[in-house]
């Protein structure tokens, strides 16, 4: 066993629990440091998005990845949650199933919106964070590289990525457009400066939105995002005033508490003169108190609320699924073949080393008996020996590689070890 995975998604973990389980970038970095201390010699990558929290662990030879129970307890400890609450809602996999799952996730096949593009960047970020935290290693490295390659193939070789329907696009096309006829006369307020905010604004811009205000806890970040998006930066202290003037709010902060409480909105509401307000609360944990959505004229959508629309998209894209799944299967088989082949490398190296030693000894003996040979002749003979050895090794190595595609070639490895007296 070399690969393990524990995680939960929007399908298995209810939003309130997912909010508690979600890791910010800082929390994820801390968790990885903790993982390294607690499970030395193992590799670990933490993927935490709005819709999923997943931990990928790997280990080789004497350091197998931690058992599922320990991984669940580890996640629970990191977020201060009772592990018993998590056990029923988290799923776990091992080895090939882990690879298949990660490849499906990276390709957007497991996303709320089938084929959504953001997940690729999120997988990349998770991998980069693991590298920075030094919990990444050769196994997870190869697995994540292969996952990104698979995502690229799925996006380019199937129509699943042709019309990139992400959560922001669904939020704008199916919900904001249901409320507003036009956006060029609407004030858009972005709370938070995350990537999801920029992505949402891109769809709003396409719909005609031009009056954009960015409010962020960090004024500099709000300013740079506003410059980039062609809007103006607002002050977080003026949030109430900005809310009163806004027609559409996109909120994607990483705050752990609601940014807009019901009491704050109750103060703002009279200033709005009955204008409808669309709130796309794409943050987890939620930025808006859910009770605000029950007020007349307020259309509040959290990430989970977009589920039905996403399911509709998923169905419409479902016909591309077989082709995408075939790519994931092919890449999984290839990766697992390579992984299994990795386990044969030590045996092959010992075999090569043994044959090389024997060959070198025989050559030395030959050269001593034929001292008249010049350097050129010796080099020719040495090359002939090497070619001969390589040809003899070709068939067993090809058999090993072929056998690796179906699984670990234990039988062949044992046979080689016994035939050539190879010691571990």
């Amino acid at each position: 066993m070399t690969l393990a995975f524990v995680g939960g998604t929007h399908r298995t973990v209810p939003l309130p629990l997912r909010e508690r389980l979600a890791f910010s970038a800082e929390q994820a970095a801390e968790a990885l440091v903790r993982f390294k201390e607690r499970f030395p010699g193992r590799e670990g990558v933490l993927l935490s998005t709005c819709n999923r929290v997943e931990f990928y662990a790997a280990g080789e030879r004497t350091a197998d990845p931690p058992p599922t129970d320990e991984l669940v307890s580890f996640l629970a400890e990191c977020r201060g949650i009772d592990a018993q609450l998590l056990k029923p809602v988290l799923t776990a996999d091992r080895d090939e199933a882990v690879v298949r799952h990660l490849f499906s996730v990276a390709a957007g096949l497991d996303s709320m919106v089938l084929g959504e593009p953001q997940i690729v960047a999120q997988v990349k970020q998770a991998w980069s964070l693991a590298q920075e935290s030094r919990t990444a290693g050769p196994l997870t490295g190869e697995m994540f590289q292969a996952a990104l390659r698979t995502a690229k193939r799925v996006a380019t070789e199937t129509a699943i990525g042709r019309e990139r329907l992400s959560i922001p696009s669904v939020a704008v096309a199916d919900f904001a457009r249901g409320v507003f006829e036009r956006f060029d006369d609407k004030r858009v307020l972005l709370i938070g400066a995350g990537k999801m905010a920029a992505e949402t604004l891109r769809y709003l811009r396409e719909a005609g939105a031009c009056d954009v205000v960015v409010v962020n806890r960090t004024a500099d970040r709000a300013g740079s995002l506003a410059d980039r998006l062609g809007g103006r930066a607002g002050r977080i202290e003026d949030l109430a005033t900005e809310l009163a003037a806004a027609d559409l709010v996109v909120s994607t902060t990483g705050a752990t508490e609601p940014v807009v409480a019901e009491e704050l909105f109750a103060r703002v509401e009279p200033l709005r003169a009955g204008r409808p307000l669309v709130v796309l609360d794409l943050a987890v944990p939620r930025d808006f108190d859910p009770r605000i959505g029950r007020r007349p004229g307020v259309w509040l959508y959290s990430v989970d609320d977009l589920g039905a629309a996403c399911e509709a998209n998923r169905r419409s894209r479902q016909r591309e699924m077989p082709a995408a799944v075939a790519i994931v299967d092919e890449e999984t088989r290839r990766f697992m073949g390579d992984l299994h082949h990795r386990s044969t490398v030590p045996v092959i190296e010992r075999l090569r080393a043994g044959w090389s030693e024997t060959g070198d000894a025989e050559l030395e003996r030959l050269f001593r008996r034929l001292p008249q040979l010049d350097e050129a002749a010796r080099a020719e003979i040495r090359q002939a020996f090497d070619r001969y050895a390589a040809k003899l090794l070709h068939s067993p190595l090809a058999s090993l590689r072929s056998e690796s595609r179906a699984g670990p070639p234990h039988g062949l490895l044992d046979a080689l070890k016994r035939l050539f007296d190879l010691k571990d």
Partner: protein
Amino acid sequence: MVEFVSGISVVCFAASYAVAFACEASRLVFRSGVRGAAMVAFAAAGLVAHTLFLAWRAAHEPAVPLSSPFDWYLLAAWVLAGGSLWRTIANPRTPVGLFMLPIVLGLIGAAQLSSRAPFPQSPATQIWGAVHGSFNLAASVAVAVTAIAGLMWLIQAGRLARKQAPLGGLRLPSLERLAHTTGRMPAVAAWLAAAGFVSGIVLNAVNRQRGLLETVPWNDPVVLRMAAVVLWLAAAAATTRATSRRPDGPRTAAWLSLVSLAVLTASILWGLFGATRHGVPPTAPAAQREAAP
């Protein structure tokens, strides 16, 4: 050609509209590539037949199209059917026919139940009669259009409140656009209905002066129901305006528009089955029943 046009009956275009409605309703059940074209074809065929039928009557009956209750209902249905077809062609993804065609079919049904005999007219009353009928027709169409927008608003708002993706075959206009209609049309409908009522008073006075028709008394059911409709539409318009700057204003307007349609429908039914002296010649018995719009 003349034989063909003269052979067109109410059933011809009513059946075409019914098939167009069935095509529109099937959007909710299954997808089809040819349904849109079939729906437009049947609605257009119905509208052409409807137009030819009205034109034939205008050419062969005295003082139509607004001079009898039958023609009045058919003309109202024709206006709505034309609007429905226009909106369907302009916005193929919006199922306007699903909402408008039932009203069209209802008006055709009301026409079938009402009198085809034209009101007695003279050159002096013809203009006032046309004005009276036109304002009432325009008010009724305005009420119907507002109610359709109101119903769409409620369905769209319900969908958005339930956080559901739009149904494939039921893409409704935005709340903003629908609220624009439900917010402004009640006042238009109220003014048109008031103008129709006032022009009716003038027409009554002219009739009395010329002795063409029996004077319609103030307590006649037609006067009472029209007054009730005008008062209701005025109250609805005032309420819509008063609540327009409240968060729940559009919802209030939507519900009021539906109630307005219900009031108008009740008024039409009352006209179909109630006794009246509206449009009765002086020689006719007082108890004569005449359907009136």
